[in-house]
């Protein structure tokens, strides 16, 4: 029997993985992301038994995703194994597919093969190759043309023990004029030790599709290393609002790319990060405009406590032939500690004419005059800072347009701020 397309793809990826060295990402100036502390040899895929019901999922997962009846589907992968996969019968009756990617290859091979890694490549580096070679479980979603799903399709990648290497792959296709909400959460409790999440996410919007996409990353206080690539392609007249939320991870290097690939396609990309302790976050986003007219709007906001570091590099690229593209990119970071460091690098490559594109970046601190203003209303210094940080994030959080997730994010940010309360208060008082 000849090898399947998947087997061939894995074999090719394995070659790249074996050939490529562990990368170090260097950027102009002081910024370096290195994996020299990652003991890759000590990590391995961990298998887990499937769970019989939603109630058997951990508190962390249930509290994050909310009740099942508010979802169209839920896939939970723990370590290397799918432990829970469910689709709302109503969604299934409309022809929606929502299943682990492994199973999708078996049951819907032709459909999966048509889309699988259309915009991803194992050649991109050691970790993209590792993911392509080793992924297990995974998630596949397909919303047929003109189907409208009210409730979110929810994927969770959970790492619940140290020593885990998790290779994750989500593939999604939203048919023409279909509408849906997709959430992918990366979660871990506070692990005592190292773990790796090497992830791939690809989502394709066909003509006229409308998708709200949210990523939530909260790897807890353990040493989770996250090296992922996420890519969204938007076809003609389709629209995607993508809100990635980064709430914690020991070391994260992610590439988030959004491609407007057809005339009239539109993307809204609003991201948020909050780093603490000695976390290291390295984000590289690309807004690639392949056709014109297309529109884009990117806003990233971050806040940093402790001695954490965050670098955001945002590239707008408008290729030849993408005339009449209008796109904007802004990035802001707010320092809440004297030891934190933030770097914002917006950049622009324009290969055509008759476009408008602008970008801007700021790194700032808590505005003293605003703190004083609020204090004159009887509000304590710490509450004033909290209000400012929450208010600063609010325009991004409200873009989630998902009350349950918004509440979750607001709650986590408030927790993080209260954890850093003494340090932040000291910093603000020192500066005033």
């Amino acid at each position, binding site marked *: 029997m000849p090898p399947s397309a998947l087997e061939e793809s894995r074999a090719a990826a394995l070659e790249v993985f074996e050939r490529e060295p562990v990368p170090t990402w260097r950027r102009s100036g002081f910024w370096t992301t290195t994996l020299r502390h990652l003991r890759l040899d000590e990590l391995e895929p961990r298998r887990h038994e499937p769970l019989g019901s939603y109630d058997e999922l951990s508190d962390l997962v249930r509290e994050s995703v909310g009740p099942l009846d508010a979802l169209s589907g839920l896939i939970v992968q723990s370590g290397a194994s799918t432990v829970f996969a469910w689709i709302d019968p109503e969604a299934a009756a409309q022809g929606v597919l929502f299943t682990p990617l492994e199973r999708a290859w078996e049951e819907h091979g032709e459909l999966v093969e048509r889309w699988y890694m259309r915009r991803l490549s194992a050649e991109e580096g050691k970790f993209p190759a590792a993911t392509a070679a080793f992924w297990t479980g995974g998630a596949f979603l397909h919303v047929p043309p003109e189907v409208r799903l009210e409730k979110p399709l929810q994927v969770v990648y959970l790492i619940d023990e140290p020593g885990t290497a998790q290779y994750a792959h989500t593939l999604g296709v939203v048919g023409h004029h279909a509408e849906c909400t997709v959430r992918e959460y990366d979660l871990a409790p506070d692990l005592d030790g190292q773990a790796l999440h090497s992830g791939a996410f690809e989502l394709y919007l066909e003509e006229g599709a409308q998708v709200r996409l949210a990523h939530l990353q909260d790897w807890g206080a353990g040493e989770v290393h996250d090296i992922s690539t996420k890519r969204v392609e938007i076809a003609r007249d389709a629209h995607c609002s993508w809100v990635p939320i980064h709430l914690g991870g020991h070391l994260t290097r992610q590439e988030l790319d959004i491609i407007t690939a057809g005339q009239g396609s539109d993307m809204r990309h609003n991201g948020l990060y909050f780093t603490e302790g000695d976390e290291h976050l390295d984000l590289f986003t690309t807004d690639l405009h392949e056709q014109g007219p297309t529109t884009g709007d990117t806003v990233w906001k971050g806040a940093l406590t402790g001695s954490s570091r965050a670098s955001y590099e945002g590239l707008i690229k408008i290729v030849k032939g993408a005339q009449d593209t209008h796109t904007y990119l802004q990035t802001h970071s707010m320092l809440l500690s004297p030891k934190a460091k933030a770097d914002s690098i917006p950049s622009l490559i324009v290969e055509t004419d008759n476009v408008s594109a602008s970008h801007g970046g700021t790194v700032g601190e808590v505005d003293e*005059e605003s703190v004083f203003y*609020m204090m004159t*209303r*009887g*509000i304590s210094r710490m509450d004033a800072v909290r209000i400012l940080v929450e208010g600063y994030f*609010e*325009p991004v959080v409200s873009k989630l347009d998902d009350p349950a997730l918004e509440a979750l994010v607001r709650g986590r940010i408030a927790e993080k701020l209260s954890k850093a309360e003494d340090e932040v208060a000291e910093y603000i008082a020192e500066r005033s």
Partner: protein
Amino acid sequence: MSLEIQNLHVRVEDREILRGLDLNVAQGETHALMGPNGSGKSTLANTIMGNPNYEVTEGKIVLDGEDLTEADPDERARAGLFMAFQYPATIPGVSVANFLRTAVNAGREEAIKVKEFGQLMRRNMELLRIDPDFTRRYLNEGFSGGEKKRAEILQLAMLAPRFAVLDETDSGLDVDALRVVSDGVNALRGEERGFLVITHYTRILRYVRPEFVHVMLDGRIVREGGPELADDLEEKGYDWVREEVAASAA
């Protein structure tokens, strides 16, 4: 019951701005503090509220016998002081309603009931002829000059302090807006509240008539009198004060 400023000396960076200022405002009274630009009016307002950029090198700020000179701004607010800012800060992402609720609750042991808060807010918004949609907007973000000042007086109305300093509340207002804001202030005057109205021009004093007028020059109060003093200033400007002060010093 009174707000007493005693021999106040204040530095900003390396400059002494207030040089021995004395002022008493009793509850129930409205005082106007006038002076040319650079005389130290806003410095006094900021120092009364405890702005950390202003350093008190000598003197005291006492409210009803309690020395607040070293108190943090939020303690002063809870003790009953309020300032309407000349240039209020913008608080992005925080709606007027949310901000008001947080501020009202900051001064209370128990959080205000939602219904009670709603009624209080509606009543005060009617007083200041504020559109209901206003409370959903982010505080001061994209507000016109008039909207900012109304938002300040709305906070004054909601927080009901014992002493309020209005720092150049009339600046940047057209006549209609000035009248609305002044009507609001007048409605909030009463036995239980003292006002210090800081202004460069006399026009707000035509609507908010003070009982006492103080004139400030170079960080001190140099003339005091009744409302007629404001009328003199309107007519003759500040130069005659400056000349008189210079003459008496020589």
